[in-house]
């Protein structure tokens, strides 16, 4: 089992551009959550997908959007990038219910 995988590992963009990050959940998991971890901070919840629907959302603007595919993989899209969007973006997968979330290694996004 490969666990949670994310791509790409690193990404450099400029302000105003758009970016798509990808996540493949651990085998058997149906729920994907996305977190933003700024330097020196704890992860902040962006949103969660279950059954291809956004089930819950944190305090992030509409520039952040996502998608979940029938195979449970997920994408995070960020439009109109700002310098402040520079962070490590973590994907976590789990079964629905009070189960442990398994985290991927993250995608490091740098906005110049």
């Amino acid at each position, binding site marked *: 089992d490969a666990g*949670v995988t994310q791509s790409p590992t690193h990404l450099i963009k400029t302000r105003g551009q758009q970016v798509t990050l990808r996540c493949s959940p651990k085998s058997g998991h149906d729920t994907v*959550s996305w977190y933003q971890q700024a330097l020196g901070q704890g*992860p902040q*919840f962006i949103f969660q997908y279950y059954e291809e629907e956004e089930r819950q959302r944190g305090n992030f603007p509409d520039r952040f959007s996502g998608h979940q595919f029938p195979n449970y993989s997920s994408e995070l899209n960020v439009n109109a990038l700002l310098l402040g969007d520079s962070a490590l973006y*973590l994907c*976590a997968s789990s079964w629905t219910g*009070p189960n*442990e*979330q398994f985290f991927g*290694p993250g995608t490091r996004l740098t906005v110049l």
Partner: protein
Amino acid sequence: AQSVTQLDSQVPVFEEAPVELRCNYSSSVSVYLFWYVQYPNQGLQLLLKYLSGSTLVKGINGFEAEFNKSQTSFHLRKPSVHISDTAEYFCAVSVPGGYQKVTFGIGTKLQVIP
């Protein structure tokens, strides 16, 4: 809403010494509590979790934590640390039925000194 306060941003400790990383939470409802570890340039790994039952929770790598409802605390302890324990540790909380949205603290950097 829930919140987590990690009282120490950095904790230096000598190898083989005991360590305690402190965590307090705030919530108006019952909670699930977690400790995660993050090694450099890696994602998060679950050390242990409290969902219900015994307030003393044992986790991986010799770590344990005690849930204290009256003090709203969930401190992490290890009786003897190793160099390999050097990492950042995050305390986190979620709400039963809250679709697993997890709220993290800002983290505590544990530096084990040889």
